[in-house]
């Protein structure tokens, strides 16, 4: 009995060592990653709402701050999705990880569109701002289409 338990203990230790070595043990727990990601998405949503209001009101100055925020938050979207960062509360589809290259592409597109949007917001050209907003919205929708589930 004793032998068996010490054997299993060393087994566990070896497993912990191996996992630790590959970085899995040190990874952020999924619940924390999911919560953090959802908070960032909420911020993006708020920024888009503010931008929409500013764009409709023709308020270029009001668009500058949320556009800058959007640009900052979309710089590294894929980093919000470390492998295994999913739980019952997460709306990220398994396709995020199984089609990682496609996911990287839409995430990158969001970054590019957010940069263009920030530029348009600071240019004072309201037509350009409207176009950039439409493009940004399409980028959000494109990613949600393939990679977000409707829970």
């Amino acid at each position, binding site marked *: 009995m004793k032998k068996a338990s010490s054997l299993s203990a060393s087994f566990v230790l070896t497993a912990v060592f191996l996992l630790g070595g590959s970085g899995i043990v040190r990874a952020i727990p999924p619940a924390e990653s999911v919560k953090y990601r959802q908070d960032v998405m909420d911020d*993006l*949503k*708020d*920024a*888009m*709402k*503010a*931008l*929409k209001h500013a764009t409709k009101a023709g308020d270029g100055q009001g668009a500058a701050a949320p556009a800058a925020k959007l640009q900052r938050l979309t710089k590294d979207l894929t980093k919000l999705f470390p492998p295994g960062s999913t739980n*019952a*509360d997460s709306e990220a589809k398994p396709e995020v990880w199984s089609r990682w290259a496609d996911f990287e592409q839409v995430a990158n597109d969001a970054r590019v569109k957010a940069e263009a949007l920030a530029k348009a917001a600071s240019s004072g050209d309201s037509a350009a701002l409207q176009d950039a907003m*439409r493009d940004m*919205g*399409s980028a*959000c*929708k*494109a*990613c*949600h*289409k393939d*990679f*977000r*589930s*409707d*829970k």
Partner: protein
Amino acid sequence: MTSNRLLGKFIVTQSPLSHRGHPLGIAIAFCIGLGMAGARADEQVQPGKYLFQAAGCLACHTDSKHQGAMLAGGRALATPFGTFYTPNITPDLTYGIGQWSEEDFVRALTEGVSPKGAHYYPVFPYTSYTRMSRADLHALWIYLRSVPPVAQPNKAHDTSWYLTRIGNWAWQRLFFKPGSWEPQAGESDAWNRGAYLANALAHCGECHTPRNALGAPKVEMAYAGTSEGPEGARVPNITSDPDTGIGRWTQDELLDFLKEGALPDGDYTGGLMAEVVDNGLKRLSAEDAAALATYIASLPPIHHEVAHHHEVAEKH
């Protein structure tokens, strides 16, 4: 089909001239012929193409997830009744609907019956298409004849054993009312156009109306949403209930949604609805989009909180 016939006529009438002429002349005559036939054919298919987009045929009949050919079918649709694979509706003679007549097509869409007499599963929204006008069905048919044929065989459905074509016959007797949409007296033209778009073409209710255990829409819950939508999606309540529906949305917000998939809180739609917006709704004319928004905004309020999936799991 039509363009070939036109082109054939053109070549026959021009051939004596071409024989006397330079090879380049023949080539030019041929190109002009092609161009004319192309423009003519394009003009003929445009109305049908618009209806085709509004009716959302593309999304289900194309397996875009696996880069499938346009309208060649094979897209998997997971439902509580099993997984359905949509059929090939290109004009391919062997695997598509190339041998169908226009009457066969009209019967399929308005009666839910195949040319061989098999009764369709209601996953195919003939229950909505039956409300289409004869003129729109004709235009849609002309457009479908113009798409490139694809030789891709259909895939068998993967459904529960108790679902059969004979069951579909019984289902139709119980739940299906064929017949085209009749405009409602006393409502505006915009409302009536919107009602036609929503109930006949865009078949919004097929997903937004919850279904009973036999898969029939619960009429008294029209547009009140369901947590058992296609592909397991949670489909929201779009009635005018202010708390559980979209009763607080402005007309402007509804239009933003139909045109761009933008939600009032800054979020953007995803999943199947994003496909519906991209393939159909955003291509609606300004008048049609406004008409659809008018109709949707008028849906009687139904207080129905659509459960989130983890809440459903906790209850069981």
